[in-house]
């Protein structure tokens, strides 16, 4: 055979394969969805979610002075768009509970003697407590605090010429003898102190590692069970299984149980390594952590089973798992601050168990929160678990097609 003929034969076989592959791809909607969907999804999600400008941090105000100047200050705080005042609290205990449970990212404390000190022109301090377990939020709050510092300074400078500003009127009305004189109000007299709590050095590892626990569990747990039923199908044991008296729900639970243990081992492993390598603390109780992880593990395993009942092959199962994994990573607050995401992204995020688990695991690990303080997050995960398990059980038919 001539070299040319051999080349032609080679080309023909190659094209035949290419044609076959193309046809298979065109007929395999799952793979097609994967090929098209993943990049589009990535583009959209990254495009929206990468936004490190933190805005609308849920904020509690502890206004001990109850003065007009403090109200003015709070209004200015909101005008920066970094803060969004969601709670008005009466005492420090309430403020800390909100911070610990993650309901707010910052607490603005206006001391009761703030207007007086302002008039005296020294020692007027506003404290902003911020949850630095999320360093991005903490940095944003710190930056906004400094901005506010400047704003106040500028305002006070203007007193010097205007003599009086609306901001200072309430202080006068307070019954104190006189308004501040320009020479007494020096720019440096008012300080805004930002106190980063929980992770004072704002170390990223301390923030990332607990989150990583959730991310790793999402992937591994989901994949374990995603392959569980489809593997039975592929190996032929499915037909044996459905001819036995076993119930769908028994198959589901039975396939989840062993992995709950596996999941807890993974939690211990990641946190142990985090401790050794990054000095990640465990401030809360390990028992609470185990308790908090339980519904999350079960939820991911149930979701995997749901995938497994829908998938025809193991490969499809892996693809479907990935479809869920991607938004979990991007929209849960693992990669980007939840507060920084646009509203629709937050809505999706609220549905994802990882979003809630991250709050649980960060709360327990970094803030030493008791599990009771995180009950709302745990219940959200339980709700997801119940729905996933019920749907998976209903879609596991003891029938052949």
């Amino acid at each position, binding site marked *: 055979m001539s070299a040319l003929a051999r080349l032609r034969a080679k080309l023909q076989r190659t094209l035949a394969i290419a044609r076959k592959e193309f046809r298979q791809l065109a007929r395999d909607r799952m793979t097609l969805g994967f090929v098209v969907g993943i990049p589009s999804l990535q583009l959209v999600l990254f495009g929206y979610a990468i936004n490190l400008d933190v805005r609308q941090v849920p904020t509690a105000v502890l206004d001990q002075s109850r003065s007009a100047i403090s109200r003015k200050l709070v209004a200015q705080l909101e005008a920066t768009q970094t803060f969004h005042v969601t709670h008005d609290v009466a005492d420090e205990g309430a403020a800390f509970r909100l911070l610990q449970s993650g309901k707010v990212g910052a607490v603005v404390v206006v001391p009761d003697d703030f207007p007086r000190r302002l008039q005296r022109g020294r020692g007027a301090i506003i404290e902003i407590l911020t949850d630095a377990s999320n360093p991005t939020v903490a940095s944003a709050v710190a930056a906004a605090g400094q901005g506010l510092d400047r704003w106040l300074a500028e305002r006070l400078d203007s007193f010097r010429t205007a003599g009086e500003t609306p901001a200072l009127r309430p202080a006068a009305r307070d019954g104190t003898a006189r308004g501040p004189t320009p020479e007494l109000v020096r720019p440096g007299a008012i300080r805004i102190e930002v106190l980063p709590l929980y992770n004072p050095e704002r170390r990223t590892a301390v923030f990332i590692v607990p989150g990583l626990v959730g991310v790793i569990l999402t992937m591994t747990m989901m994949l374990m069970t995603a392959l569980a039923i489809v593997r039975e199908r592929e*190996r*032929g044991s499915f037909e044996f299984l459905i001819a036995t008296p076993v119930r769908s729900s028994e198959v589901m639970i039975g396939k989840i149980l062993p992995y709950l243990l596996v999941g807890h081992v993974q939690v211990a492993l990641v946190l142990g390594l985090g401790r050794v390598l990054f000095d990640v603390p465990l401030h809360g109780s390990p028992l609470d952590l185990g308790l908090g992880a339980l519904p999350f593990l079960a939820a991911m395993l149930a979701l995997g089973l749901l995938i497994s009942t829908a998938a025809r092959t193991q490969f499809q199962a892996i693809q479907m798992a990935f479809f869920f994994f991607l938004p979990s990573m991007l929209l849960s607050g693992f990669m980007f601050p939840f507060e920084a995401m646009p509203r629709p992204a937050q809505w999706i995020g609220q549905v994802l168990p990882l979003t809630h688990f991250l709050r649980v695991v960060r709360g327990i690990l970094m803030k030493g929160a008791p599990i009771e303080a995180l009950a709302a997050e745990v219940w959200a995960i339980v709700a997801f678990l119940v729905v996933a398990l019920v749907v998976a059980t209903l879609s596991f038919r003891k029938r052949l097609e």
Partner: protein
Amino acid sequence: MSAGGEAVIEARGLTRRFGSKRAVDGLDLRVERGEIFGCLGPNGSGKSTLMRMLLGLLAPSEGSARVLGHEIPRDAEALRPAVGYMTQRFSLYDDLDVRENLEFGAEIFGLSRARRRTRIAAALDRYGLAGYARTRAAALSGGWKQRLALAVATIHEPELLVLDEPTAGVDPQSRRAFWAQLFELAAQGTTVFVSTHYMDEAVRCHRLCFLRDGRRVALGAPAALLRPLAGRVLEVEGGRAEALLAPLAASPLVASTTQLGDAVHLLLARGAPGPEQAASEIQRFLAAGGLPDVRVRPGIPSLEDVFVAILLGESSEEAAA
């Protein structure tokens, strides 16, 4: 239809369509307690589909069945504990060992701890699996896998055993041992519904049904199925058998030929004269074709001939006993 015995399976107009294809088409069937009931047919004739419908694993498109008193598919779940099923493809767990597979079967069929212990010990002993108790199923040869599958399918002492080509790809010795086990089970009152490709196995069934394109084309005891073919089989010998095939096929009296070593086994066409007359006519026909030294004599019909007759479109439904 044979009467008398208690019906274990009663199918009424069972039909299953896959797209436009009718895998099983309006099938009526009655299997009695303690029978070994064989189901024969070429690949794709609907044997597996029929079994799956009878087990409630596959919903029939039309018709229904009563199996062990349960309406199928409606009450399929209630039927499960009383049925053992051996799939065509090995469907146990390759990554479990023999004992673990037995344990899984015993547990999933809800046997008590004490009964599990005695049943597993009995199964290991009865099927000669004791020496392999700790061997992974994946490492077993075909014959041993099949023994394990039968052991698991019978671990809960089912009333009805459904076996889908259980001996496919298994050596003759293992097949003999397997059938000895089936007879033992049947003697204990287990009803066995088995599909097979092997004629030597089919002939051992109490009753048989032939399927073709999803339809029942023959039903009856093996002897009854063979009866209509009496006098329609001839053996031809002399010279090279290969040389005989083409001339024989040309004869209008011959329906089909099968080479058996040096001889040719042939089935006479329907409406051919009796065996003696047909033998001499064929001898003359071959002599005229230049093959004078050929002996033609009557032969004994086998189930293979029944099978061939059915493939040629002859229904043996009249043979139903």
